[in-house]
């Protein structure tokens, strides 16, 4: 029984969300592992959301925004870009493979790109395996408690 990755996606309303919607309307088969949260702009995505997602049980996080230069709000996607770069460094410090966080530029007309990315990312996370962050922390606690006993 292979594991089904849980992937949380933050999609910007104007481009990626619409692109993913287009994929659906066009009947392009894409994995149900991608669980979408819509924000108005990829610039709204706070690194805390990404980390919280991992802490709550996500195995991967996907952020989707408009192509550079095309952001509906001019430059929100650039802020997302900068945050993701620094966040990946922090993920490494915590021992989370930075490949579990992915930033993609998908425009409203690119339903096919959404499908490709969804399939690719799901498989990539499947290969990386479950993150199970909370369980890992609890396990370490258990080890400690057993040592005391």
């Amino acid at each position, binding site marked *: 029984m292979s594991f089904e990755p849980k992937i949380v996606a933050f999609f910007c309303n104007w481009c990626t969300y619409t692109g993913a919607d287009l994929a659906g309307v066009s009947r392009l088969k894409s994995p149900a592992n991608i669980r979408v949260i819509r924000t*108005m702009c990829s610039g*709204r995505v706070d690194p805390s959301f990404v980390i919280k997602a991992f802490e709550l049980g996500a195995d991967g996080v996907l952020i989707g925004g408009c192509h550079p230069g095309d952001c509906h709000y001019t430059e929100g996607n650039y802020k997302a870009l900068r945050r993701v770069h620094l966040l990946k460094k922090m993920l490494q410090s915590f021992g989370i493979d930075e490949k579990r966080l992915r930033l993609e530029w998908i425009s409203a007309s690119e339903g096919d790109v959404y499908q490709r990315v969804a399939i690719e990312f799901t498989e990539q996370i499947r290969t990386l395996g479950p993150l199970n962050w909370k369980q890992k922390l609890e396990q370490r606690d258990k080890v400690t408690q057993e040592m005391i006993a």
Partner: protein
Amino acid sequence: MVLEDYKGKKPEFTLGPKTPIYVPTMQSIPRVPVIDATSCIHFQTDGCETCAKVCEPKAIDYDMKDETVEIDVGQILITTGYDIFDASQMAQFGYGRLDNVYSSLEFEMMLNSTGPTGGKVLTKSGKEPRSIGIIHCIGSRDTNHHPYCSRVCCMYALKFAHLAHDRTNAAIYQFYIDMRAFGKGYEEFYSRLLNEGVTMIRGKAAEVVEASNRSDGDGTLLVRCEDTLIGKFREVPVDMVILCNAIEPRKDADVIRRLFSISKSPDGFFLERHPKLDPTSTMSDGIYIAGCAQGPKDIPDTVAQASSAAARILSYISKGQVELDPVRAWIDEKYCSGCRICNNLCPYSAIGFIEEKKVSKVNDVLCKGCGTCVAACPASAITGKGFSDAQILAELEGLLEV
């Protein structure tokens, strides 16, 4: 009347000798005189007052002072215009150095019936030129100066040629790279010019030099160029050279920009919201741009753009209210310490800093609700209404429950 002391000075001061009380130009709006206090005798000695004595409606008041008036407005239309390129930066054309090399605006002034020559086309020595050279693209389409095309020059160069042909017997030469006659009736005008006998030399002029003086005191100028249509280098003797100076953004465009928090495009002109679909708005709501401040353009285009901006403004005014989207950001003063990290992040310049309280504040009308500032605030003092942290975290919890 002879053109005197005009070289290098701004056009409005090249009308020849001027009295301290003068009308800036005959086309000024309003067309009322002003007094230059620095040269007026009354302001130096408290005497004279001749102008007040002769003014029948008693319209002269020496005690008038400059006033600064503060007006509250909801929308601003910026039409600050352009400057022309200072051709003395291109020393090879002799502007500012050689006699009888004029900028486009200077020649425009000469042609004007209220100008220094009363509309006659005359060289510096007061004689009619035997030949005139009009050089296109001075500072435009030039990687050393402005890469863009100034749009209006080809047509006014043709206009100059037409008027000069009308008023003189001069042989007229146009040194051009391309002939941009894009508008309504423009191509037809160009054809008409060709029939009037204007000589078109396709090749950007390389330099203008002084030929040896002719015996009647006039120094002939030589325009050196490559005539690409016949594939030969040419030296064309002319008595007068008219340059088609590039249109460039005003020197203080950056000051205006910062005042209104609007952007500029790479060429330095104010940036429109969308080059095709919205050339009169800027990214900031309520601030519009029109005319050459937005980019070089001629009169019909300026009028169209300005009318469009005015119509947009009027539609807002007539509504009497502005409809706001409920999705927007709000800064809680209780938590904001005025670090100003958010100030720069807003593409709509919707976040201002209140100096007295040392907090930042979001302008509700300008905020578009993108949420970038909400994510960036290190004190979580900004709430993204409709997409708050609590709402998104609740979504996360729901999504990952199973």
